[in-house]
């Protein structure tokens, strides 16, 4: 399928999703749906670096929180429409991704992962000690009661924005996958030495992947302060963001754009349902058990079940 056609389909799917949520006509549907959509963006963003190039990033909360806290700063300094804040948050965390990449990409495998984990800790310490954004006390965000657009109430507006972000993230991920860049990323995942010998500028491509991945994570985080209305470092840097975001592509499958989407919808929805019906503490347990199950039964994720035998886990040209 050509990219423009794919984007049309994505938009249709998004419109159907929004219409369905409107039909349910319960603002909790939007609250819960927002979280699932947020994880589609996060998981897709993680997969650009982790799935395509094979560099496992544990620093998700750092990028996510950079986006969230950039909105807090903007809210206090120069109030602007939320979509603009998302752009700023994305640029800020994209730059953070670029910097992290530059400092850590000479490390490989586990060493890279540990460095990103350390980065998240450093970032949390910085934010906790920055009183302008509330420090460890946290920051309150008063969100407008309604939006100027089509009389939507604010949670519907947030839902719509996150829906648009997931469409963009998925479209970008898929476009990369089928491009020269995607082939380059895959060579890095397979064998960096051979990639260089085949003319692939591995460092440059890894930096591009880091920047894109970090940028989308920040964009997913930017609306967070308006969603929770109270943001503190402990929740913005929560470990559950890292665990969920890594588990979703692994369960869905990392080789293509569809894997993170399936994983995010499946686990995100399960967690929301469990939160309402059983207990919110159960959500991480669900992820943990599913991850163990899938590692054993479907090491290539759910899409691995459906891929043609010969190309299982490979790239679909």
């Amino acid at each position, binding site marked *: 399928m050509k990219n423009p056609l794919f984007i049309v389909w994505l938009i249709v799917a998004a419109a159907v999703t929004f219409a369905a949520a409107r039909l349910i006509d319960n603002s909790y549907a939007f609250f819960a749906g927002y979280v699932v959509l947020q994880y589609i963006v996060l998981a897709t963003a993680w997969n650009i670096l982790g799935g395509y190039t094979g560099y496992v990033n544990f620093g998700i909360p750092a990028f996510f929180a950079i986006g969230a806290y950039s909105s807090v700063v903007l809210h206090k300094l120069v109030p602007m429409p939320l979509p603009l804040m998302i752009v700023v948050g994305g640029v800020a965390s994209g730059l953070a991704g670029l910097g992290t990449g530059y400092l850590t990409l000479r490390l490989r495998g586990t060493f890279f992962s540990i460095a990103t984990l350390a980065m998240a800790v450093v970032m949390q310490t910085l934010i906790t000690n920055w009183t302008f954004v509330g420090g460890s006390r946290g920051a309150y965000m008063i969100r407008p009661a309604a939006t100027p657009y089509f009389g939507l109430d604010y949670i519907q507006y947030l839902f719509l924005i996150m829906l648009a972000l997931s469409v963009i993230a998925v479209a970008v991920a898929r476009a990369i996958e089928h491009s*020269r860049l995607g*082939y*380059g990323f*895959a*060579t890095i*995942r*397979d*064998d960096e*030495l*051979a*990639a*260089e*010998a*085949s*003319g*692939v*500028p*591995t*460092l440059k491509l890894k930096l591009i992947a880091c920047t894109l991945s970090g940028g989308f994570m920040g964009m997913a985080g930017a609306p967070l302060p308006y969603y929770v209305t109270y943001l503190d470092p402990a929740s913005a840097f929560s470990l559950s963001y890292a665990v969920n975001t890594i588990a979703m592509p692994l369960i869905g499958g990392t*080789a293509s754009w569809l894997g993170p989407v399936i994983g995010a919808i499946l686990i995100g929805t399960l967690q929301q349902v469990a939160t309402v019906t059983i207990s919110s503490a159960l959500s991480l347990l669900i992820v943990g058990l599913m991850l163990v199950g899938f590692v054993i039964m479907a090491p290539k994720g759910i899409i691995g079940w459906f891929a043609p035998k*010969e*190309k299982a*886990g*490979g*790239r679909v*040209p």
Partner: protein
Amino acid sequence: MTDVLLQVSGLSKRFGGFVALADIDLDVSTGERLGLIGPNGSGKSTLVNCISGTLRNETGSVRFDGRVMDALPPHQRTRLGLARGFQLPRPFHTMTLAENLRIPMLYVVEARGDTVAGGVDSRCLALLDMVGLADKAHRLPKDLTQIEMRKLELARAMAAEPKLLISDEAMAGLSHHEIDDILMLLIRLNEQGVTIIMIEHIMRAVLAFSQRLVCLVAGRKIADGDPQAVVRQDDVVQAYLGS
């Protein structure tokens, strides 16, 4: 044949206190078939790694096609026309054979601003056909035998349209017949104008192939010249057979 394509001068490389290469000088002319021999651990692969940029040499320099390459990362050297095969084949294992060959075309030929003659897809097939793997174009490397893997490695190096090809022990572990197969391939490539450096332990192959032979022992070049003369040289015999 007087045109110098690759010029290595005064190249040294040490790992900690161990001197892997000491003051190597080596000229390779355009169109030449050069054999590089030496006992295990004599520095052959290290020399290849320094020439192709995987390792950085401490002293000396590598000039290729009139350019000093010392500061260039490996991918830029490949783009300038220097391709290598790895001693142990390193295919991109999640990609089909055709996709494996596509990478150098996308990242070397097209990155130079050239277009691949006849289009990328048909060129991939033509290269696979040249090494006898056309029927497996859409299989994954894990389905290949050892010799097919070596051939894929060669084909991928050729997909970058190099001026100089360095083949690092492409024949180790292969049968008599398979060695002849690869030898034929390399000679055919040379006839198409590609300069080739062959690193090999199998003397029969090296002697059949090389127009000139260089011998490294313990990081030093001890012989350089006519293959038949080099293999009769006393210190070369001594390095291989002991005194």
